[in-house]
């Protein structure tokens, strides 16, 4: 084996070894790398009960309920399998609306409501002009696709 071949082999093996090590480490820390929990995970008890965590989901159409006084707002987030009611007091981001993906940071209270101290909007990976978006929505309405097709991704 020429020294050149040997060096090439050493480099390939080292990079492969590093990749495997990185893969194992990332698999071990899987849970910690998740930025948020879905309502299903919360329902299954996978999310921490007594300390803050992040909850991600789509805002359910017609679920936004503003308090008559103050900045308090109730809304429901869903992953199309489970839902969770969220309460938040504060200014919501520009993109916050029905059907929008959001990530809320907070804690569950005794009644199972997620009390958020921060709400971030998660925009989807679709970019289109408003006319096209309207046409897509109209097309969906015509074909009767109101069965909860996700407006964006989670």
């Amino acid at each position, binding site marked *: 084996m020429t020294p*050149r071949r040997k*060096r*090439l082999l050493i*480099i390939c093996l*080292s*990079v492969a070894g*590093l*990749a495997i090590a*990185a893969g194992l480490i*990332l698999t071990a820390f*899987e849970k910690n*790398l*998740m*930025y*948020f929990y*879905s309502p299903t995970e919360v329902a299954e008890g996978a999310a921490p009960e007594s300390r803050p965590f992040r909850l*991600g989901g789509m805002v359910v159409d017609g679920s936004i309920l503003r308090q008559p006084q103050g900045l308090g707002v109730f809304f429901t987030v869903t992953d199309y399998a489970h839902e969770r009611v969220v309460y938040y007091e504060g200014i*919501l*981001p*520009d*993109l916050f609306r029905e059907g929008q993906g959001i*990530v809320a940071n907070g804690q569950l209270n005794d009644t199972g409501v997620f009390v958020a101290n*921060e*709400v*971030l*909007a*998660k*925009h*989807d*990976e*679709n*970019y*289109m*002009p*408003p*006319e*096209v*978006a*309207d046409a897509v929505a109209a097309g969906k309405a015509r074909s009767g696709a109101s069965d909860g097709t996700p407006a964006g*991704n*989670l």
Partner: protein
Amino acid sequence: MFAFLHKYASLMHFYRLSARWSGWLALATALLMAYGLYGGLVTAPADYQQGDSFRIIYIHVPSAWMSLFVYMCMAGAGAIALVWKIKLAEIWLRASAPLGASFTFLALVTGSIWGKPMWGTWWVWDARLTSELILLFLYLGIMALDNAIEDRRTGARAAAVLTLIGVVNIPIIHYSVEWWSTLHQGPTVSKLDRPSIHIDMLIPLLVMAFAFTTFYFAAALARVRGGILAYDRNTNWVRDLVGRGTVRGHG
């Protein structure tokens, strides 16, 4: 075959051959960028959700792509430098590092500026943002290691080793939005099943990506040519080139 390759890899031949490349690439960059910026900022329609704010995509996304592309070029150069001991590859790696770091910095800063109005925050520690920040630290580490070692060739080899170690981060950055739930949205352009960006918005984005690529090669070539003169400063051809017998330098 190998004699032919070695001729290209020879610093003197490469220096003479590449005399005009940088200029042509710079011209291509100027034309592509003018077209891309006009397309992105003027002719592309506003987004249905984000309005005109989405236009920062024309800087953010090409910078982020380049931050990965430059790193892969450096990793390739690093492997060639370590296995075949080709000086040109060492010089290319060294010349690319500050450019890659700049693209990464630009991607992080524009992402932050975009994140504040849209997400509601400048920064979150999700998998995509964190792995991109690690990439910036890798670039800075490679530059620091290279400069910390007195002997040029030893420094270049150490930098090449660190570059190859950092390669594991590249697929992590790319797939982070698919492997883990992140605040950053999933891929738009590399998704094949259905187009998620309107064609009028996509074309300027691709043109800008080409412009950033030609810019990288123009800037890297100019830096490589400078690096070649520094490497070979005590050889006859550089002395002849400069004309005065000696090229003064240190280090």
